[in-house]
């Protein structure tokens, strides 16, 4: 087997090794181990995407056992895209964190544990994106959850611990619900491999209702972990109480990882209509999330809460793909390409936005939005980052958000379900309302006092780079659409039963 075929395994092993190494490495070394691993991981992710584009999707049999007994990793287009997203944003977060967590500050929280937990989270995110086994999804979900809770509570003060505990309990509920779902699914089908399950489920049989209940439970668990309204209650506090690099990673990557598992299960594993009403319900909740999250973001007065609620709203867009499943290959390639584009572009913009928000918070010495007047003059780079990331949140051209909105709207209208397009349009307007409310404060005078900029320019220019990447991401849409079409997700999501 060629080295290229081993890439899925390497992508899990490399950050795992780095996680262990950072744990035993001293304070002077750990960040460089993590940085090195981030670079290696990005290279591996690029290689994975290149190989997927080159040879198409392939399965990697862990330990050589093979499904259904063993666990397979699946390297297909969407997985490669998510792994690449995790790598790019992860690299940025790592670089940002090297400036954020001062090495020479002995009291800085997280000095010991950030790097280990962060590398561990990276491991589990890669695993989550690549796994093709429904039970393995459970394991990866829990590993992501445990490391994410640890990172969210990293500061160790009461607020962070409280948010972390809530996050943990949401995780526990989701974990147990998912496990029960898998148990029911297995009892009905005696199979855990998602590709095989797809075939088994399409045939139907005596255990069909049990399998449907199992899938419904699994989906409910993933909805809770993806923070789709109304299961979003844990997200704003967990994402805003964390240190800035962690907020960025949680908002940009973790919800995307769980969303990707959902994509695999609902589109890749379950035939359309197998669980009655499920897809439409997900679409409706998505539309509600867009509206509700935006309105909440509009009402926030604390900057990180504001950004977190915007994540709640943006997650909603990702669910518009589900009610379109089964509408034919053309529509599905538009819609699937659209959500993948949205996931990627939002990941880039949101990590940049969180970093900028955190830096603004540190420099103004407050998280009160109304006390950040005049930032456009006193902190122009950070304000520009907020503005450019805002363009992506609004889905205006030339951001990737525009591309995804256009593709999703076109797909909805083609199937006659134009109401989703209206929800998308309304969401864009509400996003404009909440972004410009904040920008108007930053553009107004007279300026509030703020601390001088940190010497580390990566605290300012790195987020701007991420926001710029998102701003022009529509030009990456051909690549994203090509990746979306490689592998079983598109093919299976498009077939009408």
């Amino acid at each position, binding site marked *: 087997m060629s080295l290229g075929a081993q890439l899925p395994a390497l992508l899990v092993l490399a950050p795992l090794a780095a996680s262990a190494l950072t744990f035993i490495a001293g304070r002077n070394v750990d960040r460089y181990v993590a940085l090195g691993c981030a670079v290696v991981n990005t290279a591996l992710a690029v290689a994975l995407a290149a190989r997927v584009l080159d040879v198409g999707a392939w399965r990697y049999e862990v330990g050589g056992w093979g499904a259904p007994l063993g666990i397979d990793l699946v390297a297909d287009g969407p997985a490669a895209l998510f792994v690449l997203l995790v790598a790019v944003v992860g690299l940025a977060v790592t670089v940002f964190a090297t400036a954020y967590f001062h090495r020479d500050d002995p009291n800085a929280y997280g000095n010991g544990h950030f790097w280990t937990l962060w590398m561990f989270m990276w491991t589990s995110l890669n695993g989550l994106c690549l796994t093709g086994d429904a039970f393995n999804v459970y394991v990866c979900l829990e590993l992501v959850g445990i490391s994410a809770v640890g990172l969210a509570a990293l500061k160790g*003060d009461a607020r962070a611990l409280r948010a972390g505990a809530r996050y943990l309990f949401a995780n*526990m509920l989701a974990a147990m619900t998912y496990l*029960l779902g898998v*148990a029911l699914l297995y009892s009905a089908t005696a199979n855990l491999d998602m590709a095989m399950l797809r075939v088994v489920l399409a045939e139907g049989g005596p255990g069909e209702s049990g399998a449907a209940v199992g899938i419904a439970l699994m989906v409910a668990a993933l909805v809770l972990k993806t923070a789709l309204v109304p299961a979003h209650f844990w997200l704003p506090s967990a994402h805003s109480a964390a240190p800035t690099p962690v907020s960025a990673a949680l908002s940009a990557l973790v919800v995307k990882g769980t969303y990707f598992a959902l994509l695999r299960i609902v589109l890749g594993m379950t035939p359309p209509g197998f669980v009655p009403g499920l897809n439409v319900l997900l679409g409706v909740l998505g539309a509600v999330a867009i509206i509700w999250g935006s309105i909440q973001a509009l009402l926030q007065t604390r900057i990180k809460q504001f950004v977190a609620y915007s994540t709640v709203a943006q997650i909603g867009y990702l669910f518009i793909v589900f009610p379109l499943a089964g509408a034919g290959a053309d529509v599905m390639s538009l819609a699937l390409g659209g959500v993948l584009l949205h996931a990627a572009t939002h990941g880039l913009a949101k990590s940049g936005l969180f970093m900028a928000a955190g830096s603004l918070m540190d420099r103004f010495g407050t998280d009160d939005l109304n006390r950040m007047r005049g930032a456009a003059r006193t902190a122009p780079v950070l304000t520009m980052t907020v503005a450019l990331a805002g363009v992506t949140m609004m889905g205006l051209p030339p951001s990737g958000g525009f591309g995804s909105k256009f593709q999703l709207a076109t797909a909805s209208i083609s199937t006659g379900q134009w109401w989703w397009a209206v929800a998308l349009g309304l969401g864009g307007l509400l996003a404009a309302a909440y972004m410009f409310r904040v920008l108007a404060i930053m553009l107004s005078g007279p300026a509030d006092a703020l601390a001088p900029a940190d010497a580390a320019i990566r605290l300012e220019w790195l987020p701007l780079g991420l926001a710029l990447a998102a701003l022009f991401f529509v030009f990456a849409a051909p690549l994203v659409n090509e990746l979306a079409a490689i592998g079983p997700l598109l093919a299976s999501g498009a077939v009408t039963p």
Partner: protein
Amino acid sequence: MSTYLIYAVGGALIFSIGTYALLAQRHIMHKVIGANIMGSGIFMVLIALGKRTPDGVTDPVPQAMVLTGIVVTVALTALGLSIAKRYYTLTGLDDLDQDPPACDGR
């Protein structure tokens, strides 16, 4: 009623009790214990399912799943307990619904 069905139904009941505890109890420790009860219920369901094969041979996969599940639950519990302990030390509270004393956040 066959044995595995008793196990499965009992497991489902225990799962529901645990879910109730996790959602309704306010004490952090109670919540952690609730999650553990949920887990135990699912493990019973899984073990019962392992018996249910046509040829009468026990299916090993559910047992492997139970083992994995136990490990995961242990990790979640440990994390929950350490957070609860630290939270109690810092604030004297054992209940997430009460607002902690004002704290600064970076």
